[in-house]
């Protein structure tokens, strides 16, 4: 039994090669994207893990300030420790060498005075040691810096800035801008770069002065004598170092550093993975549709099998075997393609300056298992319904094909509606009720979203005929008979039209949902910034390290400026929960940002030791003006601040605000500003002000001064860019959708061989034939796009409403985006029609009519 089903299945795969290739490519694309994402993430992680353990290979122990809570990956900063600790540790038995180290912000400036960045990677100034074992860099040209005024930089930065050994260079740090001579070029391990970071290496004495640590160091790296007992030495060190400092091993350090990077890799990979699964989901629709159509075309063949004694079960199994074989082959190919995608993505991101290491390709067992789960899983699920249908073909249909299938549209409509309603309820419940927190949100909203799409895909067949009629009307007017045929053919089987359009519907719906959400966000963000800012200028940094205190200091000296303050921040613990506090100069803030301070209070009340709390946080913690607020800083220091005000607008400073003095008193950790805001003297000429500000920031190339309008525009641009990225990631899904329409039409052309032959015989020319197929494709894709825009916009509205009003206030809708999508759908239809219309027009008239 098994022999005959698998024989027929294999033969069917081979002899319907075109269809097999189409289905296989839909499976392949879905699998490849999933595999590519996993391979990329795994390879990056493995590389980073290897990288950090290489760097720290010879560090046995490290001493540093202990964090009271949180970790550095969350942006919690360590205070520096006194230099003397290194000397003390050096004298402990079993310690071979104890090297003080510093790693802080340091920005290389090229000959034109521009900051050199490697695609937004960190720019760091570090110390190094002559001690072979504890040195973390490899000098590949010149030598290690040893005297004051000497520096070594990494090869990638040198190449980017066109600098070499012997050249003078300016470097900006938190303490100012200094002139150095490059004496060496360094790299990491075997490479001449630092994996996307720009590095300057200073002698320790120089670093203590220029890196803004006030003569302190960040850590002590320790190497032990051969044969020393690590546990005993560690205990001895722990006894010798002051409270608030800690000892960790080199392995712990490597793990921590790798984990910090891997957190970003995970977020990045999860984002990609969502799109990979969307792609796979869309392929499932195509596979289902193509199987459903081809089973219709094989009706007589399948009925014949039933007539000569094949059980319904055998027919069903035959379809399953066909699907299984195809999906296995496609999955194996998809894994290969996925590896290529991973390499391609690495190249794309590196071209954008991400600085991903390119070495090594990790294909884990989990990746392979996931590939088969996705490839084989979606295919088998997609053919369940077609296979069941095939099994129900009555044997007598072999002789009377008109008996065919009983179309059970009523059941389909009910099933589709139920699926749609359940999906919508789950989606809304997930967004607004959030049972079980984030996981509940993702599970319910994600699952609900899938059901919505499945439901819409089956229900949309009931509206396909009227919508196609309307869409086809102008086409019929313009293209005459060919246009009329296009419309009639698209309306002929509403079920098939809606099924072919379903994949595109999903892609378009996702783009529409993202666009409603992003546009609403953009408008709200723009409004929020515009209304809360009374300032004229906002200074920002391209680097995620933010702006050094020197930026605000430089602007304070500009006569055209009336008020200026940095907005700094720190992680703290309030009531055992990690929170972010903002800090600024109260007097300046009062003139620059409208915090909407409540109850007649003013920023003048924010003295050293005071705290302002946003109205929402105040009600959460049941705080009122005059209450004490216990705040714990990362260095373990605890302070009781007095709440002296409540404010309404958290756009710029977050939920908690203290003065710069309070923050300075509490922690020595390096503190960069997210923004520096400034207001001009009344009546200052804007051009003159801009010149003055740019001159003041001349030495601080990382600082970018923008007027408030420019700043708001830049924020809006960022949101637009996110929308563009999301749309680009949906390109795979949309490509599969176009492929799907193309396959369906090609199958339809095959089905209508006689009909087309007849039309050609009675005088329709090739051009008209092509035209009829082409505009049918356009009608189908427009239908998908219209349903997609409607469904997607509703989803987008739900998403937007689910976000608190403090982030998104009000809905915004963009008609140009809709117009853009519809034009795109017409183009998609034209692309999809290329192959089927070619096939239709090339048909041999005699053969076509002779076909039985």
């Amino acid at each position, binding site marked *: 039994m098994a022999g*005959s089903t698998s024989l027929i299945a294999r033969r069917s795969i081979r002899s319907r090669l075109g269809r097999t290739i189409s289905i296989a490519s839909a499976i392949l694309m879905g699998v490849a994207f999933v595999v590519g994402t996993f391979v990329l993430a795994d390879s990056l992680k493995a590389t980073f893990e290897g990288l950090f353990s290489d760097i720290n290979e010879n560090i046995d122990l490290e001493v540093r300030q202990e964090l009271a809570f949180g970790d550095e990956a969350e942006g919690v900063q360590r205070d520096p420790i006194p230099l003397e600790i290194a000397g003390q540790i050096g004298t402990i038995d079993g310690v071979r060498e104890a090297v003080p180290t510093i790693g802080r912000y340091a920005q290389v400036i090229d000959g034109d005075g521009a900051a050199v960045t490697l695609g937004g990677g960190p720019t760091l100034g570090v110390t190094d040691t002559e001690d072979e074992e504890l040195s973390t860099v490899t000098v590949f040209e010149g030598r290690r810096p040893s005297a004051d005024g000497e520096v070594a930089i990494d090869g990638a930065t040198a190449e980017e800035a066109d600098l070499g050994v012997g050249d003078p260079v300016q470097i900006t740090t938190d303490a100012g801008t200094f002139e150095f001579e490059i004496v060496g070029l360094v790299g990491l391990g075997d490479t001449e770069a630092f994996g996307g970071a720009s590095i300057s290496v200073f002698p320790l004495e120089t670093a203590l002065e220029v890196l803004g640590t006030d003569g302190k160091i960040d850590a002590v790296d320790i190497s032990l004598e051969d044969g020393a007992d690590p546990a005993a030495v560690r205990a001895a060190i722990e006894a010798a170092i002051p409270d608030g400092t800690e000892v960790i091993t080199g392995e712990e350090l490597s793990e921590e550093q790798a984990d910090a990077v891997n957190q970003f890799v995970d977020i990045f990979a999860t984002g990609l993975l969502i799109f990979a699964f969307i792609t796979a989901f869309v392929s499932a629709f195509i596979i289902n549709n193509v199987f459903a159509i081809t089973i219709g075309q094989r009706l007589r063949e399948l009925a014949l099998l039933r007539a*000569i*004694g094949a059980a319904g079960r055998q027919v069903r199994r035959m379809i399953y075997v066909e699907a299984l074989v195809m999906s296995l082959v496609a999955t194996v190919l998809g894994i290969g393609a996925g590896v290529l995608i991973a390499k391609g993505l690495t190249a794309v991101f590196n071209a954008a300056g991400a600085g991903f290491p390119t070495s090594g390709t990790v294909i884990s067992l989990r990746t392979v298992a996931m590939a088969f789960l996705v490839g084989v899983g979606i295919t088998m699920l997609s053919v369940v319904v077609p296979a069941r249908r095939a099994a129900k073909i*009555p044997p007598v249909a072999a*002789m009377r094909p008109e008996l065919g299938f009983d179309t059970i549209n009523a059941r389909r409509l009910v099933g589709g509606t139920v699926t749609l309603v359940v999906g919508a309820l789950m989606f809304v419940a997930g967004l607004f009720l959030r049972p079980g927190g984030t996981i509940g949100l993702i599970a319910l909203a994600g699952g609900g979203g899938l059901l919505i799409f499945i439901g819409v895909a089956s229900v949309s067949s009931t509206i396909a005929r009227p919508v196609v009629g309307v869409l086809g009307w102008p086409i019929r007017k313009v293209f005459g008979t060919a246009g009329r045929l296009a419309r009639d053919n698209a309306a002929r089987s509403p079920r098939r039209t809606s099924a072919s359009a379903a994949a595109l519907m999903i892609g378009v719906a996702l783009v529409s949902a993202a666009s409603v959400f992003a546009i609403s966000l953009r408008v709200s963000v723009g409004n929020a910034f515009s209304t809360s800012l009374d300032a004229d200028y906002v200074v920002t940094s391209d680097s995620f390290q933010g702006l050094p205190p020197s930026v605000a200091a430089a602007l304070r000296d500009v006569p055209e400026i009336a008020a200026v303050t940095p907005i700094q921040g720190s992680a703290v613990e309030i009531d055992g929960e990690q929170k972010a506090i903002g800090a600024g100069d109260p007097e300046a803030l009062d003139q620059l940002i409208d915090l909407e301070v409540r109850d007649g209070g003013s920023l003048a009340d924010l003295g050293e030791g005071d705290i302002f709390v946003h109205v929402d946080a105040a009600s959460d913690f049941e705080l009122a003006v005059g209450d004490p607020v216990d705040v714990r800083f990362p260095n373990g220091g605890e302070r009781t601040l007095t709440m002296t005000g409540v404010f309404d607008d958290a756009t710029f400073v977050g939920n908690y605000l203290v003065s710069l003095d309070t923050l300075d008193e509490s922690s020595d950790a390096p503190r960069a500003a997210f923004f520096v805001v400034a207001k001009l003297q009344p009546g200052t000429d804007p051009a003159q002000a801009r010149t003055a500000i740019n001159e003041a920031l001349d030495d601080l190339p990382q600082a970018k001064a923008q007027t408030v309008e420019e700043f708001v525009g830049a924020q809006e641009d960022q949101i637009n860019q996110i929308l563009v990225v999301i749309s680009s990631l949906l390109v795979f899904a949309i490509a599969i959708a176009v492929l799907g329409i193309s396959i369906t039409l090609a199958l339809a052309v095959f089905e209508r061989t006689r009909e087309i032959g007849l039309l050609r015989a009675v005088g329709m020319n090739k051009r008209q034939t092509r035209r009829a197929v082409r505009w049918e494709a356009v009608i189908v894709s427009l239908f998908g796009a219209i349903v997609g825009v409607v469904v997607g916009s509703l989803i987008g509205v739900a998403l937007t409403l689910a976000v608190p009003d403090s982030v998104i206030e009000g809905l915004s809708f963009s008609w140009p985006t809709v117009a853009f999508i519809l034009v795109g759908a017409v183009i998609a239809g034209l692309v999809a029609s290329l192959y089927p219309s070619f096939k239709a027009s090339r048909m041999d008239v005699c053969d076509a009519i002779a076909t039985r």
Partner: protein
Amino acid sequence: MSTIPTISTSPGSELAAAGAVDAVKRYGSGDAEVRALDGVTVSFESGKYTAIMGPSGSGKSTLLHCLAGLDDLTSGAVYIGDTYLAKLNDKQLTELRRTKVGFIFQAYNLIPTLTAAENISLPMMLGGTDGDKAWVDEVIDTVGLRDRLKHRPSELSGGQQQRVAVARALASQPTIIFADEPTGNLDSRSGAEILQFMQDAVRRHGQTIVMVTHDPVAAAYADRVLFLNDGRIVDEMLDPTADSVLEHLKNVGE
């Protein structure tokens, strides 16, 4: 010649390979009701070749489909061997078709993706057996397909395709073979070959065949001809010749 003929053998007797008792098949209801079969009682003797003739719409194809278990009756009963089909579920019906019934259709007889040899042994493969190898070989030689076994249906002429279909029907040694206008799509020479093979199978190997046809020449190969009109059997002729059948049809026409 308008009396209802007597049944030569009674239902369920050992000599009958298949038959129907008061078979009624109605399509539609009310004014639109069509009685495709209007109380047919007939039996087909084992080892005999029976032709069923009648004008279009007389119900001959419906009778064949119901006898073969492809379609079900509105009332009455059909049996194959000692099995009443109404008592069978789909699984048992499938099993019956595979083992006890062979089919030869007018057109589109073969699975296009399988070779001639695979098409011939398909019913056995579906049952998970190889069948009787020697017999299958003999059948292949009889129909003269030895050198065409590896060919796909699309590479064979219409006559060759129908020979494959005959071979497939014979290969599993079914209780009865039903043929629905087997020569309808063939030229007269290929048609004669097919009819000869079928007659030989009955004469030499005791196969039972029931064939629906329009063609008096084809009917002449049979041992017995049944005439159907308006869903009823109206006449019967034993040992027909082409001329006698034609004569009969002319008489009915008058």
